[in-house]
């Protein structure tokens, strides 16, 4: 490991825009721009925000037998129906480990005769090694010559379609390879904010020109990691290493929706992924704990690590907060965390210990803000 932080192709642009830079997953990344976290968040929900997510891992997986062979091989690592994914479509999934825990979460796309996978920055080396070891007969290629931009928000379609008209024809979770003035773009209609929007993979040498063209639109502001985190939390989306990790199973993490029937007991391709015995059993009988949304009653945020109790006094902690912040759109604090399954029902009153005081907090439905996807 080098001590030197890596830079994305947009690094100079971030500095020019006045970003405050922080180390993140080995990269020097913008945490906020002069607008500030709160306004960046609100702008994304009102118009469109541009995010540099080039630190994430982009991977192409090919097999001699074409898409089906690659898909079936990846199914040995991920409890998702990948063979049944239509061409030009994308799906969310997780890598599981032998204990049924989550090694990372990822986006899996069916593109032409191959898979295109996007994984978290902090996990990408491990994920690629895991795929190379666990997908015999497949070629696992890390794409290092392309940046990744996300354009998110209700005006994202209007803004991007001015440069790439065909994105209008895409629905939520569609993927497409489209030509543009910025070279070939690999586009998905998805993101990490709960808003409609796109993730755009662009050749490194064209990334800054594309970013500048998007930012030239009055509707677009650059958005840093700070607002990216509050946006995804309001949308109820997990952050790997916080809300999900190698000790949380997909069932505990309330991600059972990502495991199609076909991979469950009785399904045509049931099991066959690491930790399947644990995960399939939990799908039938439930897990002892569950990830839930939490809404503190007061204004004080309950941040990661806050311990949760059943009562205002006494007793041992029964769970803990895994992410917590103030939600600019809901105008209130919000958290997610794990609680015993019998306390996971919406409306259950719990107490979070903040600075030695137990403060009331209610189990709440997620997302905290309604999703705004173009289905």
């Amino acid at each position, binding site marked *: 490991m080098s001590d030197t932080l890596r830079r994305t192709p947009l690094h100079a642009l971030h500095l020019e825009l006045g970003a405050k830079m922080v180390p993140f997953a080995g990269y020097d990344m913008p945490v906020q721009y002069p607008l500030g976290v709160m*306004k960046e968040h609100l702008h994304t929900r009102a118009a469109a925000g541009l995010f540099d997510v080039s630190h994430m891992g982009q991977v192409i997986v090919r097999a001699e037998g074409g898409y089906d062979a690659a898909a079936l091989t990846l199914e040995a690592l991920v409890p998702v129906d990948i063979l049944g994914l239509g061409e030009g479509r994308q799906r969310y999934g997780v890598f599981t480990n032998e204990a049924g825990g989550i090694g990372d979460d990822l986006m899996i796309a069916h593109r032409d005769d191959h898979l295109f996978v996007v994984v978290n920055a902090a996990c990408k080396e491990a994920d690629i090694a895991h795929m190379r070891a666990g997908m015999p007969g497949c070629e696992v290629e890390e794409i290092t010559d392309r940046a990744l931009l996300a354009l998110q928000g209700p005006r994202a379609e209007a803004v991007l379609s001015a440069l790439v008209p065909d994105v209008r024809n895409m629905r939520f979770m569609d993927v497409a390879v489209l030509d543009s003035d910025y070279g070939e773009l690999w586009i998905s209609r998805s993101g990490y904010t709960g808003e409609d929007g796109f993730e755009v993979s662009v050749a490194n040498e064209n990334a800054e020109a594309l970013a500048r063209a998007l930012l030239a639109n009055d509707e677009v502001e650059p958005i840093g990691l700070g607002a990216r985190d509050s946006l995804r939390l309001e949308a109820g989306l997990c952050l790997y290493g916080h809300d999900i990790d190698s000790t949380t199973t997909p069932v505990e993490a309330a991600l059972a929706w990502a495991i199609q029937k076909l991979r469950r007991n009785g399904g045509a391709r049931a099991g066959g992924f690491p930790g399947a015995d644990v995960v399939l059993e939990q799908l039938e009988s439930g897990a002892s704990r569950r990830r839930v949304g939490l809404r503190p009653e007061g204004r*004080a945020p309950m941040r990661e690590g806050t311990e949760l109790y059943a009562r205002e006094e006494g007793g041992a902690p029964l769970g803990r907060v895994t992410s917590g912040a103030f939600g600019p759109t809901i105008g209130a604090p919000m958290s997610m965390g794990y609680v015993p399954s019998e306390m996971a029902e919406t409306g259950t009153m719990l107490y979070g210990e903040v600075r030695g005081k137990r403060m009331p907090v209610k189990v709440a439905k997620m997302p905290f803000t309604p999703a705004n996807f173009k289905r």
Partner: protein
Amino acid sequence: MKFTEEHEWLRADGDVVAVGITEHASEQLGDVVFVELPEVGTQVTKGDDIVVIESVKAASDILAPVDGEIIEINETLADDPGKVNSDPLGEAWFFKIKASDPSQMDEYMDEDAYKDFIG
């Protein structure tokens, strides 16, 4: 006006000291979303944590600059914590403390010294 190394400003009027945070501190904190104030009548000792400020990034404290009694708090900050960013030196004072030993104020920096301190 005097300044502490914790980036608080102190405005003395006789033995009553109003306390806020500097522009520098407010910029470093980012958008403030929650302020927890002490109760009026609380006796505090210099160095006690008496205010909690939560920003979009993290929680931080304000310390009592002198020994004394809290005689007034700025309750408007509970409803509008954003004032700490928009007007840190004016409307966003946090509390007023009646100093039991006003000479404790002598150790704090004047404006020039504070400017040097933050570089």
